[in-house]
């Protein structure tokens, strides 16, 4: 049969954001694929060189839209390492709380995206609706719903409002209850199982070779997690075990996130319990935002975002702005190198589904 070239995206509804894939198909089987990123290049790394150290978070949170807090925290941690400052204990817990809530909201986005890509639109609407309760909490804590601009070098901006921990726990109870309904409607749905099992199987050795990180790597049986390997914020004090699976197919990747969703709910509960028992007030060291000079040197700090390892490499020449900053995002490996190879041999209908299954974030690729 004659091979045909097809452009998936950047206008295709099945593609996550501004991203395109050129696929060569034979019948409806993909024989070759080429990822075409670059539609969303905003030059974050260069722009950061023109900003003060404290002006970073309002810009950096835009690198990965559904998971903004991890970007802010990664950058803040690199600057803190460079400046040699330690965040107060309560600040660390509030930071961990925002990170886990961010993971929960990003996973809900993921469930919505993958559900939509295989035709389960009910799940897409449920997940986006449930995510709004987390955004309400963010609004109450940070003053904004999507770009929180909350985690700064030195610690989170403000302490939690009065009674906030109780409201967080209520939302966690609600999400846990909803997760059982998701199980019935989504994770045990025959359509979901048929469309995801044994699709695009990734082996552990391949994941290691291609520097796959995050839930995608753990779904292949590779137990890596920055929260365990290089603990930060309050994670050294939190009790959790790494979840891994062996199959490495689309089903395992989705279920990995479903299991980690439950784990994140447990982590949030641990954090709120601890926050209640801690004295309020001291959450942040506030340097002079306008004239803060960081000693000459370089530092790298990574966080475990909902998509994988998100690292920030920052170089200072002793001035009031970064000399150079580089971002190590998880999506460049997942969305470009891995995706191009894994989609070969799959059906045309899986082009969008695999992109969602790998949780590719195009703004993170382009930066």
């Amino acid at each position, binding site marked *: 049969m004659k091979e045909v070239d097809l452009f998936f995206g950047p206008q295709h509804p099945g593609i996550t954001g501004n991203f395109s894939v050129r696929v060569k198909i034979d019948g409806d089987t993909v024989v070759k694929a080429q990822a075409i990123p670059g539609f969303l290049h905003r030059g974050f790394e260069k722009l950061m060189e023109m900003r003060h150290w*404290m002006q970073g978070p*309002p810009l950096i949170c835009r690198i990965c839209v559904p998971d903004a807090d991890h970007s802010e925290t990664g950058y803040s941690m690199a600057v803190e390492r460079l400046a040699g400052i330690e965040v107060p204990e309560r600040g660390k817990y509030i930071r961990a709380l925002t990170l886990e809530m961010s993971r929960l909201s990003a996973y809900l986005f993921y469930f919505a995206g993958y559900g939509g890509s295989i035709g389960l639109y009910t799940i897409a609407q449920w997940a986006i*609706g449930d995510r709004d309760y987390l955004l*309400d909490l963010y609004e109450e804590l940070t003053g904004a719903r999507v770009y929180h601009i909350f985690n700064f070098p030195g610690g989170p901006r403000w302490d939690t409002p009065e009674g906030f921990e109780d409201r967080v726990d209520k939302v966690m109870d609600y999400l846990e209850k909803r997760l059982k309904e998701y199980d*019935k409607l989504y994770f045990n749905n025959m359509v979901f199982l048929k469309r995801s099992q044994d699709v695009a199987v990734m082996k552990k050795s391949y994941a290691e070779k291609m520097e796959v990180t995050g839930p995608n790597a753990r779904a292949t049986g590779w137990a890596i997690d920055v929260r365990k390997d290089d603990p930060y914020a309050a994670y050294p004090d939190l009790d959790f075990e790494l979840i891994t699976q062996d199959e490495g197919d689309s089903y395992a990747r989705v279920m990995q996130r479903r299991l980690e969703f439950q784990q994140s709910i447990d982590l949030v509960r641990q954090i709120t319990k601890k926050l209640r028992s801690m004295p309020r007030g001291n959450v942040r060291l506030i340097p002079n935002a306008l004239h803060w000079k960081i000693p000459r040197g370089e530092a790298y700090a990574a966080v475990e975002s909902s998509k994988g390892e998100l690292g920030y490499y920052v170089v200072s020449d002793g001035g009031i702005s970064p000399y150079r900053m580089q971002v190590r995002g998880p999506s460049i490996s997942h969305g470009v190198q891995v995706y191009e190879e894994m989609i070969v041999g799959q059906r045309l209908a899986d082009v969008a589904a695999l992109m969602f299954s790998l949780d590719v974030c195009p703004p993170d690729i382009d930066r």
Partner: protein
Amino acid sequence: MTIKREGSLFSPFRALKQLGKKPHTVQIPKVVKPPAERYRGFHTNDLEKCIGCGNCSRICPDNAIKMVPFPEYAKKEPGSMPLRPQIDYGRCCFCALCVEVCPTGSLQMVKTFTHVDDKKESFVFIPDSKVVHETPDFVLDTKDLRRK
């Protein structure tokens, strides 16, 4: 952790029981959801308290704040300048860094955030103590929004 790999043909019908539940959404403008206490909306500035130091203008990551002359506020206090901030909401990203560095606390953010106009000039204004576009009285408490 292991998971069962089995599905059910009847699982889609379970969604039907959601039909009797309240929707997530509210009917704007009949029902307006109140923003949180810390919501970062438009600015207010106490022009008497402001000393025109320009810290807000220098910290703004979007260059949205310009200091404009206000000769009537010329004071003899040291460090006081006859200038007041003018904010371009076409550029502002509502990060509140300006509020954070304000040494007198005169610059604040309020919960109102809606402005619609076909003239781009209307997005540039000098905040004073008055809140721009007071939002209507809120008619719903967030507690009622949570699904039962």
